[in-house]
């Protein structure tokens, strides 16, 4: 439930703090600097708390599945149990190197994550096989560039045909940088315009609608 003041006050806060933090970048006055440093110090532990809220949401969802005996609730029990076990191990024995917590990270969490990402090698290869067709000039350029960089980076081809490796590093260093730079400039300008609209309350969708 959102009241009228509760709807407007956040936009005032957003304007005040948003402008303050933009100004502190350009005005190195000690008063402004100490204020913004203090706010950042206050903000740091809150960032951890926000992560906790997200984790609570995840665990509540799985607990509800177990409680209602929904389909595949057994897997939710696995999630809840493993989360609780990892948290207890970390809280009781600490998170430093050589602890059970670090061992669980190395032998349980890391292998599963690495294997899941490595699975993408198969799916990317099959997707590329289906999608890469030299139908247009752009698609042909993409295909050729991908092959040159891929084979140029493999040590075997580097030994077999050295110019391929040089061409691959040229592509990565120059045309690739040009494309990335243009995309970076474009997306940054777009993100900045959204940020300005949000700070000045022109775009209000970020905090929901008035009720």
């Amino acid at each position, binding site marked *: 439930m959102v009241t009228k*003041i509760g709807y407007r*006050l*956040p936009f005032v*806060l*957003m304007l005040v*703090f948003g402008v303050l933090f933009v100004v*502190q970048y350009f005005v190195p006055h000690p008063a402004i600097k100490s204020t913004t440093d203090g706010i950042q*110090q*206050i*903000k740091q*532990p*809150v960032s*951890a708390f*926000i*992560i*906790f*809220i997200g*984790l609570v949401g995840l665990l509540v969802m799985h607990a509800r599945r177990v409680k209602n005996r929904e389909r595949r609730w057994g897997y939710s029990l696995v*999630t809840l*149990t*493993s*989360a609780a076990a990892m*948290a207890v*191990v970390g*809280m009781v024995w600490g*998170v430093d190197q050589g602890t059970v*917590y670090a061992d669980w990270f190395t*032998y*349980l969490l890391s*292998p*599963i*994550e690495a*294997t899941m*990402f*490595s*699975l993408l090698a*198969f799916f*990317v290869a099959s997707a590329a096989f289906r999608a890469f067709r030299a139908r247009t000039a752009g698609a042909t350029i*993409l*295909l050729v*560039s*991908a092959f*040159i960089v*891929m084979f140029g980076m493999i040590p075997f081809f580097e030994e077999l045909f050295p110019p391929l490796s040089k061409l691959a590093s040229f592509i*990565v260093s*120059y045309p*690739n940088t*040009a*494309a*990335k730079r*243009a995309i970076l*400039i*474009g997306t*940054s*300008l777009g*993100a900045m315009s959204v*940020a300005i609209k*949000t*700070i000045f309350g022109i775009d209000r969708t*970020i905090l929901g609608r008035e009720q």
Partner: protein
Amino acid sequence: MNLASDPYVWVAAILTLCVFSFLYKDNPFFCFAEHLVVGLAAGYTFCTYWQTIFLPELITPLWQDGMGSHAHLWISVVICFMWACKYIDRAQDLFRCALAFWIAVDLGLFLPTTMSARVLEQIAGTVNLRLQGDWTVILGNLVLFVGTIASLTYFYFSKAHKGVVGAAARVGSWTIMVGFGATFSYVVLSRIYLLIGRVHFLMRDWLGIVE
């Protein structure tokens, strides 16, 4: 063949095989590993944030000197409570205020740093042409300059892509395709390296087939 004697290696190997079983089709072993990794990651995240941020930067300072030099950290506690109001329907106003404060500080920090690092520095890096040294460097810098301008033209929609603008946009789209090709190959190679790492783990650490 020299099988591993460390139980942790066995667990890691079995979990790796559970994830690889997805290559056949979705199955209970993969689902188990999938939910296990979610739970472990949740517990890991909780402990890491608790031990590295929440405890040393909020709980401990407040416990030691909560009414003295660290009194300002009580504001963090209040903001944490306001965030927790997300789950209380009648206190949505408080949650929105905390959210607005958070967004404002982040956007205020984001605006000037993005303008500086992602726009002005990138433009400076593009226009400050270094036409000295090896011919490949000179050619590369020219490609970088022309490619960036052309790619930016491709994203410029306030003028119809005809004539000179159209030609520049076409060159820009080709440059972007070269960039996408290079990025795609990097993604494929990184996944293949991960796959090699997992297979190497199974064959060396678990089965002891290779040195």
